[in-house]
């Protein structure tokens, strides 16, 4: 962080940032974020980033020609 925090809080925020996107923010970090706009922006923007990639990186089906070549190569069908 560019602003002052003790190492324990930084570690907790970083743990949060390496955890499940949908996981509930641990109470202590949530409480800290209520009084710290910078940390709120930091964590929220990471969540926005993940959401944006999830929206754009949608599943696609295997194109027919790709599938045909796969089964031909494996001598299956």
């Amino acid at each position, binding site marked *: 962080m560019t602003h002052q925090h003790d190492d324990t809080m*930084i570690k907790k925020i970083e743990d949060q940032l390496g955890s499940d996107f949908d996981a509930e923010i641990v109470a202590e970090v949530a409480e800290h974020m209520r009084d710290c706009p910078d940390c709120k922006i930091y964590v929220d*923007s990471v969540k926005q980033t993940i959401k944006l*990639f999830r929206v754009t990186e949608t599943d696609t*089906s295997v194109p027919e020609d790709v599938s045909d070549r796969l089964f031909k190569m494996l001598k*299956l069908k």
Partner: protein
Amino acid sequence: MKKTVNNLMNQEAELIKLARAGDRSAQTELVKTHSARIYNLGLRIMRNEEDAEDVLQETFIIMLGKLDQFSGKSSLYTWLYRIATNIALQKLREKKKLDAEISVHEPNFEALRGSQLKEWPDHLEDKVNDEQFRHCLAVAMEDLPENYRAVFVLRDLENLSTKEAASVLSISEANVKVRLMRARLFLRDKLANHLKCVGDMR
């Protein structure tokens, strides 16, 4: 619900047994069941269709050749993810060697901690049809070093648990968490730069 999942697992176990014995229709069924997931995984890590097809083909060659070695301790898709991810990472490393003169150094992740603390605009999802914005997202993923990209893809796009991703990548769960955090901060920083450039963020 649990019963349905158990039924599907039993069906797959039966298919694996038949496929191991050389039953072609069981082998076909297994490939059909898992090919879309593996193709999507390949696309997300490799970032192009041609390489994704190579990953797809090589993964199933290995699956059919080594089905005897599948212990059944993990699910078949986790095993296939491991094979496919290893193939994809190997290919990316080979490409990197070929492009050695333009290879990107490991980003300074430390510098990303707490950087760019400006509020992001609301409703950014509305911008995903904007060609320039999509290009920015694609470039950010391409720039993300492969070890971090693989973790981000497995955890945030393929929805694997930390434990599953650790197993697929043969690294510790703690390492998955660190890499995931760094990947997310890297991508966030790239997007923040883009938003600043296009004037969406002051």
